[in-house]
């Protein structure tokens, strides 16, 4: 097994990977940008080295700097997490060339699956159903574009060949909007992935997003760890994920799992990956893409299979056989993940930045919070506005929802606007509770607080904790408190 592993990432995923490394007796090496010098993920590691710079492209995307640090400090292997360099085949190759294990699939598999067009062709060849589409050169000829789109039929989805996470993606309802959408998607894709190629796909109405977790080793074994349903999305990004999917029968589950495994075997897939499908209301499923990395929502699978996927990644990367066979794997209970974002659901989910003036995570049996922030953290413009993931498990879907609602009701995040109350409203929506999910759920069911009424408790709290109640102009309650300001000494870490 490895002695020292560098985590080429930040935030909650770096914290989560560090914990497994340390448990296994492996030294966890962190890296950090200038704004992250005091970040939670640095402190979670055993060693930490700076990647001087502020933006992602100056720091966490700089494979050269990261490999230099790894070589200087005797690192055996690099875990890329998700995002950043995790699906960058050049980086995987650079690791390999430097004699460092890249924890993930081979560079070739990353490249092939990273190219959505090649991936689709590969999976189609392996007999997996794919969505009708067109992958010609969209920028060459407006006429060809329009004619291919017409052939597929509107609505059309424009997607980046190198894409992921909703970036470089556009839905087009009519021909008049196609050219502009393609241009925007190309620009966004170019900025995000350095590859502006896009392709067209039939846009399936009211589909579910159902993905299969796969895992392969160097000995040719590939298994699946069942599905995750990730249909609740905004801006084409998942915000609620769960396993099992309320839509899957045991037969359909077996069929989709088998399709994913067959295709993964065909391409020699190793380590953790996710095969994404869309599932139409009639139960037909179509291959969407492969994510060649640990997924944001992997904890959902961990809580129903009772396996540590990062531990398994390390085993496989070290050349050991998979620590589980298909027969040993079971899907037990029900898990739900909510992504906690600093964003304003009332303003089109626009990101919100600021300081976490108050931050208290819920805790209790069966509640897992993977987070990379704490009270006093700055939510900046530099990185993704996801603050944390709340993952709850119950025996049944109903119990998992109950537990998640309980936890959301006790999650205190103040100083930035978040989607906490919004998530609660989604979870308690009758259609969500019935399991009637699809990727346009949020568009079809406008979610908002049931009432604008400010409850009495809030008036009372404001009156007691306002600065107006005492004769000295201080809060009645803080009047007897320490002389410091209300937030200055609230337990937040600060620079020396």
């Amino acid at each position: 097994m490895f002695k020292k592993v560098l985590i080429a990432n930040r935030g909650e995923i770096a914290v989560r990977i560090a914990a497994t490394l340390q448990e296994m007796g492996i030294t966890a090496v962190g890296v950090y940008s200038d704004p992250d010098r005091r970040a939670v993920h640095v402190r979670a590691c055993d060693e930490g080295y700076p990647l001087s710079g502020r933006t992602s492209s100056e720091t966490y995307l700089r494979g050269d700097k990261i490999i230099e640090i790894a070589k200087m400090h005797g690192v055996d292997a690099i875990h890329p997490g998700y995002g950043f360099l995790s699906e960058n085949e050049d980086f995987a190759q650079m690791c390999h060339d430097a004699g460092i294990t890249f924890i993930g699939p081979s560079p070739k598999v990353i490249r092939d699956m990273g190219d959505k067009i090649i991936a689709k062709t590969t999976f189609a060849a392996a007999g997996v159903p794919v969505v009708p589409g067109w992958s010609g050169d969209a920028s060459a000829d407006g006429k060809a574009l329009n004619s291919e789109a017409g052939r597929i039929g509107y609505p059309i989805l424009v997607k980046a060949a190198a894409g992921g996470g909703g970036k470089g993606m556009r839905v087009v309802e009519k021909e008049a909007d196609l050219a502009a959408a393609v241009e925007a998607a190309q620009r966004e894709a170019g900025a995000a992935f350095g590859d502006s190629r896009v392709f067209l796909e039939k846009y399936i109405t009211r589909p579910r997003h159902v993905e299969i977790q796969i895992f392969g080793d160097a000995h040719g074994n590939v298994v699946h760890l069942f599905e995750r349903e990730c249909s609740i999305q905004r801006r084409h990004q998942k915000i609620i994920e769960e396993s099992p999917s309320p839509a899957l029968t045991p037969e359909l589950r077996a069929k989709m799992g088998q399709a994913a495994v067959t295709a993964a075997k065909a391409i020699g897939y190793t380590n953790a990956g996710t095969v994404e499908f869309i599932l139409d209301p009639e139960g037909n499923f179509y291959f969407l893409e492969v994510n060649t990395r640990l997924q944001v929502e992997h904890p959902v699978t961990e809580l129903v299979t009772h396996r540590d996927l990062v531990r398994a990644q390390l085993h496989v990367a070290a050349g050991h056989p998979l620590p589980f066979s298909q027969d040993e794997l079971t899907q037990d209970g029900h898990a739900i993940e909510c992504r906690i974002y600093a964003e304003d659901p009332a303003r089109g989910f626009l990101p919100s930045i600021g300081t976490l003036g108050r931050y208290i995570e819920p805790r209790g049996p069966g509640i897992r919070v993977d987070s990379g922030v704490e009270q006093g953290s700055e939510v900046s413009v530099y990185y993704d506005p996801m603050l944390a993931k709340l993952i709850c498990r119950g025996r049944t879907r109903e119990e998992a929802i109950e537990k998640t609602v309980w936890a959301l009701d006790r999650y205190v995040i103040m100083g930035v606007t978040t989607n906490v109350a919004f998530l609660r409203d989604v979870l308690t929506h009758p259609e969500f509770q019935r399991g009637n999910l699809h990727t346009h759920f949020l568009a079809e069911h406008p979610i908002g607080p049931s009432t604008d009424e400010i409850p009495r408790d809030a008036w009372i709290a404001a009156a007691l904790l306002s600065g107006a109640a005492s004769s000295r102009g201080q809060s009645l309650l803080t009047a007897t408190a320490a002389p410091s300001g209300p937030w200055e000494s609230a337990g937040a870490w600060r620079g020396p």
Partner: protein
Amino acid sequence: MSEILLKSPGRETPVVVEVQRCREGECGDYRVQLDQDAHDVEVICVDDGSAVLRIHGRIVPVCVLRDGNRMNVWVRGRIYVLERVERVARRASSGAATTAQQSALSAPMPGTILKIHVSAGDSFAAHQPLIVMESMKMEMTLSAPHDGRIREVLCRPGQLVEMGALLVRFEDGPGDESSR
């Protein structure tokens, strides 16, 4: 006995809340008069800005984060905004500019300017895209809030702008503050 005037941001009329400390010398017990009802409130414990109250036996954890006269109040997973109003009832500035025409477009978030679709002197129609910016790794289009004409463009592509930074200034439209 203290009296506090609070209002929710959208509303005109403040609510008068009377707070009375019970049992002089003993800690933690207040009588809060809100509208017609009086509430016995026990303060179980308090940290700066957070407290656990007992209101008629119910345990109510709360957090308050102040920003000037604005108070964000957390109760059971939701955050409510209340404003403290001064006793001298200065007529709130009658919601000027809420429905009136804007005189400029500013950055709703810090970010980078990607594309500027207009130049000084250009006319535009409501909802027309004016500027494309990227913020927190997402592209976002800033559209015209109403018909109008550009007076001045205050940013350039590639520029990193702060939240609230003025991006373009409009010519005064047909409406002004006095009109509705």
